[in-house]
């Protein structure tokens, strides 16, 4: 009897699925790009739009009240776009994660609902919306109901300063990175409240673990963030990107040996802050049912998961911004893009810069997912030890090293380039060696090329 052969989808369907999966969430940033002129701080865009609308409707809309209403509408519209980007990205991320998990565990993963299983996240979302919204007896029902919105707010507020491309950012705040670290604090508050208000010991333990974890890892994360901030001399996200270049040796991560270390400190801390494996103690299924999520169902559960998976984008985008040159397009420096302003080509280059940023971010997001299915969950004492005994001291060393490094760069500007070239070449070798190793392992097992048949 022939062994079971999974039904394999045609290659064109796989390609189409991937193309759609990558495109759908980015329709929203494109719409945001289109709405950027409306969001100018001077309000000029709104004035123009109102004048046009007044002409169409035949009324005078030039008064201050109309302007205020128009501004509010524009802000709401952009907020709507951002939140939907987060929601749809997290939906697709769930699907992507399940497919990767399937591959890494030698099983199939979702492959039924439409387009080779791609629509499973839509089915999930519909299911969540239709489920009953349960509030446990004896729970503090109001707090229980509002807790997910704290989490959602903390997550959604980060999009205010998160860049998507050369000019695609809601508000390039002067305190950008600092702002991101501080608004994520609302997530912790939401988690603590949800843990307490559920009136369940599993939820309470989960909430406490989460708070302990996030508070501990905020410190190394903050220290690591300071390294690129010192190198750029600014807290603004766009300024930090502008201080870097498109080529790998112009990225902050390679321009300073301490930044390379700081990146790993930041990445580890952010995994912990986002409750991702191996730091998923707050929702450890085998010990705490689902931690602070235990009592949630339906839409509120979906909100938690939406921000949790959406956080993968936030953390990857932050790392891309701080260490990997952001949206810098090779061969097209930022000044050259700005010079195109007013022409059609400007919009094109915006799209290119968004694509560069998205590709870098998605590659990092992929690493996040990959880690989840590779590493086991660590114990709580190991989690604390890692933060306080390793990451915090390393973070301080990086910070102090960077201070001296910047002094050295001031004296000898060639230092940065030398470090950049040396470290990026080294990183290239590591990546090549890694892929050769993986390829060898895969071919040793299967004896032939990588098998994509279960798509």
């Amino acid at each position: 009897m022939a062994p079971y052969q999974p039904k394999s989808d045609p290659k064109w369907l796989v390609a189409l699925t991937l193309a759609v999966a990558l495109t759908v969430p980015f329709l929203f940033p494109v719409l945001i790009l289109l709405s950027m002129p409306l969001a100018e701080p001077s309000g000029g865009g709104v004035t123009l739009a109102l004048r046009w609308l007044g002409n169409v409707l035949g009324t005078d809309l030039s008064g201050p009240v109309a302007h205020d209403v128009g501004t509010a509408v524009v802000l709401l519209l952009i907020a709507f776009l951002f939140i939907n980007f987060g929601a749809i990205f997290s939906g697709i991320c769930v699907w992507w994660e399940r497919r990767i998990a399937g591959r890494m565990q030698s099983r199939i993963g979702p492959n039924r609902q439409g387009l080779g299983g791609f629509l499973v996240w839509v089915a999930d979302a519909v299911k969540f919306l239709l489920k009953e919204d349960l509030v446990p007896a004896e729970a503090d029902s109001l707090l229980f109901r509002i807790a997910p919105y704290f989490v959602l707010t903390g997550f959604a507020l980060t999009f205010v300063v998160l860049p998507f491309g050369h000019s695609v950012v809601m508000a390039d705040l002067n305190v950008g990175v600092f702002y991101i670290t501080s608004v994520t604090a609302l997530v912790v508050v939401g988690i603590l409240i949800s843990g307490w208000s559920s009136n369940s010991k599993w939820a309470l333990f989960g909430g406490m673990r989460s708070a302990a974890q996030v508070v501990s890892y905020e410190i190394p994360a903050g220290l690591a963030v300071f390294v690129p901030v010192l190198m750029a001399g600014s807290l603004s996200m766009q300024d930090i990107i502008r201080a870097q270049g498109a080529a790998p040796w112009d990225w902050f991560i390679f321009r300073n040996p301490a930044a390379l270390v700081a990146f790993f400190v930041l990445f580890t801390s952010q995994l912990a802050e986002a409750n991702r494996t191996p730091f998923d103690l707050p929702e450890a299924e085998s010990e705490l049912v689902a931690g602070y999520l235990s009592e949630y169902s339906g839409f509120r559960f979906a909100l938690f998961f939406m921000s949790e998976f959406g956080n993968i984008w936030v953390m990857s985008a932050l790392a891309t911004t701080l260490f990997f040159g952001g949206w810098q397009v090779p061969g097209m420096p930022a000044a050259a893009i700005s010079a195109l302003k007013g022409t059609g080509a400007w919009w094109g280059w915006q799209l290119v810069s968004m694509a560069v940023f998205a590709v870098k971010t998605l590659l990092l997001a992929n690493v996040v997912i990959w880690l989840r299915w590779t590493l086991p969950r660590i114990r709580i004492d190991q989690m604390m030890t890692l933060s306080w005994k390793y990451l915090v001291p390393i973070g301080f060393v990086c910070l102090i090293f960077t201070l001296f490094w910047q002094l050295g760069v001031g004296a000898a500007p060639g230092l940065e380039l030398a470090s950049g070239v040396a470290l990026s070449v080294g990183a290239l070798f590591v990546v090549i060696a890694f892929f050769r190793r993986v390829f060898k392992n895969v071919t040793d097992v299967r004896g032939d090329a990588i098998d994509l048949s279960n798509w």
Partner: protein
Amino acid sequence: MNRTFSKLALWAFLALLVALFLGYFITRVLPDYLPAGRAVPPRLGDLVFYACAAATVAGAAGVAFSRNIVWSCIGLLIALLGTAALYVFLSADFLAVAQLLVYIGGVLVLILFAVMLTNRIGEVNVSNQSLGLGGGLAVFAAVAPLLMLVAVLVPWPVRPPGPMAPTTARIGDEFLSTWLLPFEVASVVLLATLVGAVVMARKELKAD
């Protein structure tokens, strides 16, 4: 003093506060916006400002009057968020974000954490004595007239808020020049506090 009375007194007090606020708002603030006044309709910024100010006051009242300590924490959260928003209106961007980071990310989370570490947290209705009426009213009677008189009597200089200029670099410069002494000495405060916290949190001292 029985419970009904203290409850009634509490509500009367709250009603008085609300009435005072409304009275102030209607007589002092609103006329500027009415057609008879300066004929300036409230702009979006004004509305947001009053919303933030009201939320701050309401949050602070929640902290003081809630009988449930977790609800007090939520009140504190709202008050702190409102304060951060008011800083934004004063063009103090760095301060606003620092307020978020320190007070919500640090202080509030620690308070919630401590509340959850306390005994009997399983009972949802953890209530605290919301008002020691006699003492509270005495202190209020002593302090409130003073502060209210000051608030009313002083000719506060009115200045339009500055433009949203970046403040971070200036704050850094000031810390390391004009305010170097308190800034550096503050590190001793933090060290002493850390040592003190460890001293209090450790196990009972035994001869070793």
